């Protein structure tokens, strides 16, 4: 009986020592190793691209894209920062303008800009990214949405501006996701900061006095509390996207029952980039090129509910009429966001959780 046990112990000891030694081993040299035909793309949880589009990419280039979902844009960026010495993937899609400069400043990304880009892409480039780490892929406008049917029934004119939201006529009617736990929630906070400057805290005090409801995430606000959401809530004003109204066209109807207030929008631009230290940077670059082509751009609205950065791309039916983008979205420079985000969020949190 004793021998097998001894053998087992010896074996476990050997495994442990081997593991310890492996842990101390140095990195293998990376010089001119042939790249793998399978690349890994780290994304946020909202990645939703038609598998046919990805299959076409594989057919054109022989490269297969493996996806890796990492939570929201914040979690995605922070995971990449924590693992920058040994990257998780070859590239990233979904870092937005509220997190982009953190990723660049922390050295997560390698420089890459596609040789050929649609003309409109430049206008979406990240301010401060002159070296060209990130390529814009899509954008969306985070705007206040209103339930027009509800307002018509109440014979009340819907609000139009940020000021209106603090108007007592609209008391207890607004619901928004929180800035600390939701990326559209953060966009809304930034929109108010961009609009009111240093007075944003006064504005938020007014909103709180006017009964704004703050939920954890977009789905809590839209699906449970919004009158036109899935749960048929009781607040007819909600924070959502300018692309949300087409989804409220009733069965058999041809007009949505909600609309977006285009004077209240913050523009979120989503970027893609190659990770510094990636194992397959060249093949990843090919995929970034592909993301700016017509096929990928055209599939964005239907699959991810965002607008293509190539503005010549035709939009799905209904989008032109019912989901226009904001002519003048509120702008807050990306570098200022990175610099002040923590302070703003702390101040916002202290204000709203008093």
């Amino acid at each position, binding site marked *: 009986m004793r021998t097998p046990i001894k053998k087992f112990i010896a074996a476990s000891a050997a495994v442990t020592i081997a593991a310890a030694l492996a842990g101390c081993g140095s990195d293998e040299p990376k010089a001119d190793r042939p790249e793998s035909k399978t690349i890994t793309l780290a994304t946020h949880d909202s990645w939703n691209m038609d598998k046919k589009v990805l299959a076409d990419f594989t057919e054109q280039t022989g490269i297969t894209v493996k996806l890796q979902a990492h939570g929201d844009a914040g*979690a995605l960026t922070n995971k990449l920062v924590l*693992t920058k010495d040994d990257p998780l993937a070859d590239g990233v899609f979904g870092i937005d303008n509220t997190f982009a400069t953190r990723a660049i400043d922390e050295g997560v990304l390698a420089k890459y800009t596609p040789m050929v880009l649609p003309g409109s892409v430049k206008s979406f480039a990240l301010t401060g990214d002159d070296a060209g780490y990130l390529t814009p892929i899509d954008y969306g406008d985070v705007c206040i949405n209103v339930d027009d049917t509800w307002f018509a029934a109440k014979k009340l004119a819907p609000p139009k501006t940020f000021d209106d939201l603090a108007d007592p006529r609209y008391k207890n009617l607004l619901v928004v996701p929180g800035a600390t736990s939701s990326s559209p929630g953060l966009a809304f906070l930034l929109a108010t900061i961009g609009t009111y400057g240093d007075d944003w805290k006064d504005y938020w005090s007014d909103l709180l006095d006017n009964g704004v*409801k703050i939920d954890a995430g977009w789905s809590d606000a839209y699906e449970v509390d919004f009158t036109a959401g899935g749960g048929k809530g009781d607040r007819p004003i909600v924070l959502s996207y300018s692309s949300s109204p087409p989804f409220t066209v009733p069965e058999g109807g041809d007009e949505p029952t909600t609309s977006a207030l285009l004077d209240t929008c913050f523009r979120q631009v989503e970027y893609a980039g190659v990770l510094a230290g990636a194992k397959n940077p060249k093949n990843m670059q090919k995929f970034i090129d592909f993301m700016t082509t017509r096929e990928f751009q055209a599939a964005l609205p239907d699959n991810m509910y965002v607008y293509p950065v190539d503005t010549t791309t035709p939009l799905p039916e209904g989008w032109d009429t019912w989901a226009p983008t904001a002519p003048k979205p509120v702008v807050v420079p990306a570098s200022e966001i990175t610099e002040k985000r923590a302070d703003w969020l702390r101040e916002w949190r202290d204000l709203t959780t008093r």
Partner: protein
Amino acid sequence: MARPDHALTARRLGTAALAAVPLAVLGAFFLYPVGGMIQRGFWPDGAFDPGGVLDVLTRDRVHRVLWFTVWTAGLSTILAVVLGVPTAFVLHRLRFPGQRLLRTLIVVPFVLPTVVVGVAFRQLIATSGPLGGLGLDGTPAAIVAALVFFNVSVVVRTVGAFWEGIDRRTEEAAATLGASPARVFLTVTLPALAPAVASAASVVFLFCSTSFGIVLTLGGLRYANVETEIYLLTTQELDLTSAAALSVLQIVVVTGLLVALHRARRTAPPLARAGESGRSPRLRDLPLVGWTVVVVALLMTPLLSLLVSSLRTDGGWSLANYRALQGTGADNALLDTATHALQRSFEVAVQAAGLALVLGTIVAFLVSRRPRSAGVRRLSATFDGVFMLPLGVSAVTLGFGFLITLNRPPLDLRTSSLLVPIAQAMVALPLVVRTVAPVLSSIDPRQREAAASLGAGPARVLLAVDLPHAWRALAAAAGFAFAVSLGEFGATSFLARDDTPTMPVVIYQLISHPGSANFGMATAAAVVLAAATGAVMLVVERLRVGSVGAF
């Protein structure tokens, strides 16, 4: 005389080798990743800076967060005990038709994903919901209600299992001597039950104080506990020092609770087999039966509201939401069909339950031995406690820890699809240990000694003595682990995932998309998931193992 010494040494070495297997897995997939995250917090720029961590603990906000964690968890624990103890009596000491179904229904909330419960609760209490008039939405009361909803079953199962084991003759003797039923309860039953109640209460407090999804969804951001604070600090602010400070605090508190739990369990009576005893209800049991009916009704209300909304489409009744599960949702909400996700959930649950069963059985086998020396007993208790730690440590810390530590061979697994089942197995492991260990301890060691003296080797003793007693418990533990894995969302949501999501992830994706069709489909998916876990638990219940879901 040298031979027995050799045999003893060999046996000890054998035990140590056996203990090394689960310890190695726990070390690699729990202690090492969590340690890695804490290290980043204590050594922010490569230099040891404990001052930064101590500084965090003096912040006002941290104090608020701590106080909120303690009082919500404390109040939820008290309520769960008040609701659960009378229910335990009715479901475990009485005997009536339909009892088994009731016992199953009680456990379903425990294995449901938080994302489902969050939505179900919000639908009920949102100002427009059926209970909107109570004004609970976004208040701490809603958080406490949901925490109680999750944890009543822990009290019922734990106290119930012990109650069945209490010798009825003591109570009968007291009654014969003229004690009133109330007096019998206070002087005989309650003191005997106390360890079970204390044991259940410490576990419920543990679950409540580390609850994440519920506090985030129902707290409406006005309230934060330690767990949600760690999440915000890590995923949004990348403030690892503060997150590490809170993680360490969490581990200290959890360790304290585990010690208390161990003390409480030490004085517990041996386990009886469930469903063997029990008398028919009498007239004077009526208030308790009424109480139980109320408790079951409270637990079922959110589930029924979910069921109702899953059957409604555009103002009428239909099964359209269920039919939609074969597709990918309206407006391409999903990349794959919900039925595929269910299939994937089953696969993951089989892997997770298998791993949890193997490791949990080894742990249970080792901790159920009764060593003679006090030192070895303490060692065994510590060994037992270490495997409970995953229940009390932030899933965010673990998820991020995987990424920064499991990046070189032989553990180059940080983006492997095996990580989800492994993480879920870590969550289910303590539940397996708590189900199997009491059954193994209840085996009279003299049976094993007799078998050994008749010439049976250790393997033969296991097969001939332990297995016949324990197979039901093993099967029940596997089923329980399977159900827990089906509904697991917390740990899963912080891991890197490939494009074949599990059912709870799909539900989350569906409610994150606009359009009432997707919301309806999410409720249908939630009902299917609840039904699947309920069905598994019904089978487990048929095995009549009292220790399932008990602590």
